[in-house]
C-alpha cells in the first residue's frame, strides 16, 4: 500500500497549473490581436504626434514638442476639413436617425412583402462599393440623373452634383445618409422587436391613434436604441472618408470636400515626403473631438432617463 508521493504531487500541481492558466489560453489569441493591431498603434500614434520632424524610415526626430499640433491647428486645410466634417455629422446624423426610426417602424408593422422591403433596405450593406459608386454617379448625373429629373418635376433647376463645388457636399450627404441607413435600421428593428406588443394593445384600447402611439409609446421605449445608434453613427460620421471615393474618387471638386480623416490620409500618404507628425497630431485632435461628443451624448442620455 505504498503511495507514490512524487507522482501524485506532480499530477496535482499540474492540474492546478492547468486550472490557473486555462483562462490565459482562451485569452491569448484575442489579446495578441488587440495588442498588435489596436493598442500598439494607438500608443504609437499618440507618441508620434509629439515627435517633431519625425522621419518614419530612420525613426529620427528633432525633439519632443507641440510643433505638430500648432502646425495642424493653423493649417487652413485642416480648418476646412473640420468644418466639412462637422457639417457632415450635423446633417447626416439627425436625418438618417429620423429616417431610420420611421422606416424601421414601418418595417416592423405586419405588412405584405415585408421580407422584400427588408431585403431592399439592407442591400447597401452587401453591395460592392464600386458598383454602388457607379450607380450613384448615374443617379447624380447632371443631364440624365434621376435626382435632377425629380427636381425638375418640382420645377427646381438641375444641380450639378458631381462637377461643381456647390453640388458636391449635398451629394456626399445624400450618399452618406443612404449608406448609413441599413445598419441603423437593423439595430432599430431589433430594438422595436423588444417592445412588448401589449403596450400597443393597451394604448389602442384607450383609443390612441397610430401617430400618438408612435410618439408617446414607440419612440420613448426605443430611446435607448436610438441613443446607441446615434453614438455609433456619430463616431462613424466623424470618420467620414470612404464615402468620398465612390462618388468623387477623392475629396471632391477642387479639394472642397476635405474631411478630417482625409486630411490625415493626405498628410500620411499623398504628401511626399510624408508628414507623419502632422497626420498623427490631426488624428489625436479628431479623437479628442469624437471623445467629447460621445461623452456629451451619454450625459444627455442619462439626463433624459431621469
Amino acid at each position, binding site marked *: 500500500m505504498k503511495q507514490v508521493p512524487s507522482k501524485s504531487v506532480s499530477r496535482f500541481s499540474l492540474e492546478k497549473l492547468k486550472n490557473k492558466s486555462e483562462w490565459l489560453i482562451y485569452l491569448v489569441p484575442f489579446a495578441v490581436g488587440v495588442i498588435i493591431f489596436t493598442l500598439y498603434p494607438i500608443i504609437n500614434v499618440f507618441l508620434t504626434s509629439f515627435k517633431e520632424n519625425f522621419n518614419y524610415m530612420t525613426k529620427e526626430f528633432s525633439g519632443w514638442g507641440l510643433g505638430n499640433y500648432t502646425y495642424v491647428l493653423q493649417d487652413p486645410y485642416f480648418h476646412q476639413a473640420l468644418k466639412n466634417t462637422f457639417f457632415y455629422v450635423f446633417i447626416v446624423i439627425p436625418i438618417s436617425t429620423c429616417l431610420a426610426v420611421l422606416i424601421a417602424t414601418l418595417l416592423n408593422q405586419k405588412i405584405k412583402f415585408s421580407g422584400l422591403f427588408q431585403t431592399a433596405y439592407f442591400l447597401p450593406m452587401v453591395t460592392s462599393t464600386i458598383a454602388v459608386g457607379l450607380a450613384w454617379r448615374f443617379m447624380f448625373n447632371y443631364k440624365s440623373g434621376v435626382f435632377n429629373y425629380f427636381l425638375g418635376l418640382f420645377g427646381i433647376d438641375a444641380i450639378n452634383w458631381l462637377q461643381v463645388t456647390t453640388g458636391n457636399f449635398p451629394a456626399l450627404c445624400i450618399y452618406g445618409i443612404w449608406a448609413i441607413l441599413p445598419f441603423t435600421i437593423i439595430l432599430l428593428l431589433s430594438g422595436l422587436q423588444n417592445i412588448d406588443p401589449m403596450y400597443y*394593445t*393597451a*394604448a*389602442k*384600447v*384607450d383609443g*390612441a391613434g397610430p401617430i*400618438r402611439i408612435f410618439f408617446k409609446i414607440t419612440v420613448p421605449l426605443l430611446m435607448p436604441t436610438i441613443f446607441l445608434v446615434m453614438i455609433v453613427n456619430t463616431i462613424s460620421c466623424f470618420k467620414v472618408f470612404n464615402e468620398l471615393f465612390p462618388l468623387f474618387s477623392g475629396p471632391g471638386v477642387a479639394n472642397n470636400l476635405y474631411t478630417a480623416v482625409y486630411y490625415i490620409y493626405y498628410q500620411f500618404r499623398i504628401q511626399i515626403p510624408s508628414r507623419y507628425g502632422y497626420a498623427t497630431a490631426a488624428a489625436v485632435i479628431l479623437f479628442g473631438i469624437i471623445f467629447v461628443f460621445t461623452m456629451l451624448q451619454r450625459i444627455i442620455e442619462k439626463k433624459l432617463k431621469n
Partner: protein
Amino acid sequence: MKVTIQNLTKCFGATTAVNDFSAVIESGELIALLGPSGCGKSTMLNMISGILPVTKGKIFFDDEDVTDLSPEKRGVGLVFQNYALYPHMTVLENICFPLEIKKVKKEERIARAKEMAKLVHVEALLDRKPSQLSGGQQQRVAIARALVKHPRILLLDEPLSNLDARLRIEMREEIRRIQQETGITTIFVTHDQEEAMSISDHIVLMRDGFLQQIARPQELYDEPANCFVADFLGTPPINKTYGVVKNGTIVLEGDCTVALEAAKNLDEGREVILSMRAEAIIVNDSVPLAEGTIDEVYVMGKEVLAYVQLGSKRVRAYVEADEEYGKGEKVKIGLKKRGVFVFDKETGERLV
C-alpha cells in the same frame, strides 16, 4: 351595465376557441370567467373588450349592439395580465394617459387621476416609475388606469396570476372592494377556482370553448350541471367512481354495491358516474349504503382524511378526528344528500 352575449363563436383557422356561447351578465356584478388553460376564457374577454373580432354572434352592452365597435368606442377598461404599464411614464402619467387621449384638460386629468390613485391606494407613489413598484402596486396602478376614463365595464385578464400567494389573497379582496365601491360591472379571467369562488357574484365556467354553467359560487359547488363542473371545483377533488345501475342500486367497478336512494329512479343497466365530495362520505354511518375498506389515514391538523377502498376505486373521505381506524379495517359507508351526484357516463350530464 348589463352585458348580453348571444351565440358568440370565435374560430382561429380550423380551431374553434369559443363555441356558440350565450350568457347574460347583470349590471354591477363581479363575474369570474373560469376554466382550465386553453378553454377560451381569454378569447372571450378579448372579444368583449373588442380587441378580437368575433366570428359569429353578438355582444350587447345594455341594449347597444357593440359587436362591431372598436375597443375605444365600447368604453371598456382593460387590465392586462402583465399590467402593461408604460415603463417610461410615472404612475401619474400612466393613469393620465387614457384621459390625455380623450383630450381632457390637464387640471381635470390630474384631479381625476389622483382620485383614482386614492381609490386604489397608490396616492403616495404618483411620481414613481413602474419599475420602482412591487407587483401588487403595479396591479393597483393598472386598475386605476383602466378605471380613470369611467369605462362602462372593467375587464381583468388573469389579474392575480403574476402575484405571490400572500399578495394574491390581498389583491383579490382589493379587487372586490374597488368593484363594490365603484359599482362597475367587472369581468375577470382566472383558472384558479379558489379565486373565482372567493370574490365573484357569479362564475361563468367554460371548457373547450363551451359554456358549462353560470351560477353563484356556492350553487356551482352544490349543484353542478355536469360531471366536468363537479370535477373542476373543490379541494380535494371530488371522488369519481364508475358503475352500472342494477336493481335500484349502483354497482361500482370492483363489485361494490351502493344502495343510493335516488338510484331507484334510474334506468336499469345504465352506465353512470357516481361522484362524491370528500365531506359527503360518512365512515361508519348508522345508515350504511355501501361497504369499504380503510386503506390509509392522514391526520392533517383539525381534519383527518381517510382513503377508503370502494370497489376498485380509492376514495377520499373526511372522518372524525377522535375515531381511530386501522389499515384494512372494514367500514360501513354512508352518504349525505349534499355533495353526492350521479352523472351519465357518456354525456357527463347530471342525473341525480
